[in-house]
């Protein structure tokens, strides 16, 4: 009802008006929607910068140990399932495409279409997690999960250099990094689902101030693309380590 009253009215941006509607599309601290939208986008990018640095430390750790123990990484990574990794990369790239379509249709105010593409994105996210779950499950079964039950054996065909460098502890280090990095990434996928699903429902339901404008969708999409970008690097770094 507050929305009814304010719609169409010409505001002067006096303090009194500003204080009045928490629930209008423009929050009281902003002068207009333009300023608000840009603030949200810049804020989102600043947040993504922190995300990059967050993963960054892990990438450094990865690089240091791969440099130190190249043969360990080669031998241990053979235990990862390339087809599943490839499928997951395909799924995430596709989901990025879907979510950008959702933003596109939200911009055009085609809400049904926007929501549909969001749901498809969420579907992809679930697909990704299910496959990841299978991979993790398999690692549990064969004892490749770091911890007291960790085991690792070199194939008899391994080179003598490899036999010298690869120890159980160092193999565990590889899998530790694998689980830390893909696990953190997986948590981000999960959070993505928790963001995108309600968003899709809100868009379907229609007039809710959060989705009156496409900016929240764009922000969620930015986050989702970032998750995708991380995986774009994780995939070759873990699954496709060159054997030579």
């Amino acid at each position, binding site marked *: 009802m*507050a929305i009814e*009253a304010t719609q169409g009215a010409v505001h002067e*941006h*006096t*303090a*009194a*008006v*500003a*204080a*009045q509607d928490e629930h209008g599309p423009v*929050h*009281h*601290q*902003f*002068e207009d929607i333009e*300023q608000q939208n*840009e*603030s949200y986008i*810049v*804020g989102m990018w*600043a*947040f993504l*910068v*922190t*995300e990059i*640095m*967050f*993963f*960054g*430390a*892990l990438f*450094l*750790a990865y690089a*240091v*140990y791969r440099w*130190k*123990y190249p043969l360990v990484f080669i031998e241990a990574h053979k235990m990862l399932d390339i087809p599943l990794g490839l499928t997951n990369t395909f799924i995430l790239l596709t989901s990025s495409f879907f979510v950008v379509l959702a933003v596109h249709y939200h911009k055009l105010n085609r809400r049904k279409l926007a929501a549909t593409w969001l749901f498809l994105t969420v579907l992809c996210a679930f697909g990704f997690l299910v496959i990841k779950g299978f991979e993790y499950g398999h690692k549990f079964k064969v004892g490749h999960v*770091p*911890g*007291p039950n960790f085991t690792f054996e070199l194939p008899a065909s391994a080179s003598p250099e490899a036999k010298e460098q690869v*120890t159980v*502890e*160092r193999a*565990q*280090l590889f899998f*530790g*990094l694998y689980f*830390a990095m893909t696990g*953190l990434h997986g948590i981000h996928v999960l959070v993505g689902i928790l963001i995108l699903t309600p968003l899709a429902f809100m868009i379907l339901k229609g007039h809710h101030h959060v989705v009156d404008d496409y900016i929240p969708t764009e922000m969620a999409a930015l986050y989702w693309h970032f998750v995708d970008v991380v995986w774009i690097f994780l995939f070759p770094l873990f699954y496709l380590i060159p054997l030579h």
Partner: protein
Amino acid sequence: MSSSVLENQPVAEEPQRPRKHYLNAAHTVGSWLFTTDHKRIAIMYLISIVIFFAVGGIAAAFIRAELTSPRGIMLSNDNYNKMFTLHGVVMIFFFLIPSIPAVFGNFFIPMAIGARDLAFPRLNLLSWYLYMIGGLFAVLAMILGGVDTGWTFYTPYSSMYSQSQVVLTIMGAFIAGFSSIATGINFIVTIHKMRAPGMTWFRLPLFVWSHYATSLVIILGTPVVAITLLLVVVERVLHIGIFDPKLGGDPVLFQHLFWFYSHPAVYIMILPGLGVISELISTFSRKRVFGYHFVAFSSMAIAGLGFLVWGHHMFIAGQSMYQGMVFSILSFLVAVPSAIKVFNFTATIYKGHVSLDSPMIYAMSFLGLFTIGGLTGLYLSSMATDVHLTDTYFVTAHFHYIMVGGAISAFMGALHYWWPKMTGRMYPELWGKLAALLMFLGFNLTFFPQFILGFLGNPRRYHYYYLQPELQIYHILSTAGATVLALAYLLPVFYLVWSLFFGPKASSNPWGASGLEWRTASPPITQNFEETPIVTWEAYDYSSVPDLKEEAEKQAQPPTPVGG
């Protein structure tokens, strides 16, 4: 909300009723705990931060008391370790890092740029809750037995061997980290997007510039330490061995990652202080800050260069000597922008109309102490001298000169400077001056002897020194100084609280300062300004200040009747 009805009526100013402002806008506890008003959140931060400061201070008192005798007087080895860890963790993660940004930045950035609030008020509230939750974890860890790793959590001791509450403490620091990230993002967006019409980048007060630089450091550095500490927890719980050499890990990698954040973090602590000092020096010298642009850019330079010197904490940690040389040279470089600031501040005072009100005394203390702290940093940055000085009291003295003599002086200066604006009351100036002077004296008495101790080879973090009993005199001097210092910090608690009830009412601009925050009522209304200000003057242009303008005009030409 009924405000839409009220909106059409002229705001009736009944003379008997006190003026509405942000403090008396609502009185319930909920109106504080769920507020999104940046000013109220700043006040909540102020209160909680002061409490943590007290906790850290009590730990410091134990440490100083213990050290009065070469064999200690009351703490076991274990408890001594826990005491200095508690002191470091609380002071750094829960006091210094949030202190100036979350209190004064929060309160005055929006006001200084002419905005109604920060860009994301709810995120701001969230940051306070995160801070409190993080603090709760740290306090819980303390109650459940404490931590003994030092605030640096060096591996593999922290990740494999320590028998204390490492996980809880790290969770506390981790969560508090997100609180400061939230603040950083909020400031960045606010400074970019919420400036009032006419408030260009080079009209911003230097306080705002320094907070912009600080926020950059926060968002670029904090995530790295967050994930690193998380890895320590993972290693502790799962025994993965990322940092444990026994399991193939590299403990020096932890130090790389830790100091990648924690050296820049020392600038998170000092840059806001430098911003405060810019305001104080200018206001109380009644002069524009000398070399405004240089001071602004030196903040940015410090933020950038600060990321390139972390290895100076690792000269003897097994880091490559060649890398050490590079870090050593870069560390000398980072001192340049700091020096630019000190020179410019000094030049600002020169030939200014200096008035030595208590905030200015704090500012002057800052200049001297920060200079000593920075210069001794150079002794530590040159590898040959550092081999002798590292892990001695010299290092302790170095960073306390900057963090206590610098950052806390700035904090106290800011508190006194902005107190009239925040509360609408004046404090007794004489007491203010006394506390400021006591602080300067107490501080030097506490920490100057520590330079000598360090030079004589007394290692830090040990509570026995019976092999060198002749060091006792310096420790006793230091403890005596700490007592004076404690008094100097306690005094303001009394007279500031007293002023809340009995202090004379403050005018809107008691210092004749030029910032926008001084062009609205004290205390300000919830929306900060009656209407969005339009800025037509440069930063620190004292002839533009309404009260002072009249004076200036009276001298220049016969006054013209202007309304408002």
